């Protein structure tokens, strides 16, 4: 199950950082650089998604995309996921990626 903060045809002020290989201390680094995330989730072992609220007001798509790309570049996140309306995984639901599916058809939590 995916979601994103919604503000119509604008970005809601939140940027998703897709950290496929988060390095040690990444959270401390985000905070020290003034980009403290408001939510961090582990989508599968070793893969994180961080939501960073960069504006209390909705942002135009082009601006939000540039900000997402800048953050992805700064923190070595997945640049393919750096856009103004990227969806993130919702906490407490399962990740049904094929590689996480078990023989019985269920996914790892």
């Amino acid at each position: 199950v995916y979601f994103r903060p919604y503000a119509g045809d604008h970005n809601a002020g939140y940027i998703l950082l897709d950290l496929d290989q988060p390095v040690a201390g990444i959270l401390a680094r985000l905070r020290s650089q003034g980009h403290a995330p408001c939510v961090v989730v582990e989508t599968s072992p070793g893969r994180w998604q961080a939501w960073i609220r960069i504006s209390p007001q909705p942002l135009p798509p082009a601006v939000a995309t540039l900000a997402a790309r800048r953050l992805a570049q700064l923190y070595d996140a997945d640049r393919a996921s750096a856009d103004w309306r990227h969806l993130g995984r919702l906490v407490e639901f399962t990740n049904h990626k094929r590689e996480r599916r078990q023989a019985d058809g269920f996914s790892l939590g």
Partner: protein
Amino acid sequence: VKLIYARDCLAPNGAALLEAVAARPLPPPALASPIDFPPLRGLYQACLDRLSIRERYPAPDWSIADRWVARELLETGAAPAPWLPRYYVTAVPAFHAGMPIPRTTCAGLSAPLRCFPARPSAARPTDPPARALCASVAGLGADWDTGFAYT
């Protein structure tokens, strides 16, 4: 999917980040695409109509609508999987003035569909102009039915 950390906060340097990106000069306009836009827009519009998206959702979330359209194109064989990312970064933004669909979305779309059993050729829609267009854009031969999306 597990929660690691949650806190109601605005990034202290969010405003500085926005100033920095606002100061950055806009990228030059995209180079003219070798793809002919009007037919692609027609293909997209046909999919929207077939899925009745406008009727069902007067103000659709385009990121979801695009995904449905991509799935429809793959399932019906109207477009080969390798061609979809190119389609989305060229035709769709021009159509509804959104941003390009991330390539990962398109890549993710094609993977599960490969599990589906092959459809008999007769079940595939036969829209010669659209199919010919797809084949030419993707650099495929006339028999591109074989080996794409359903294998």
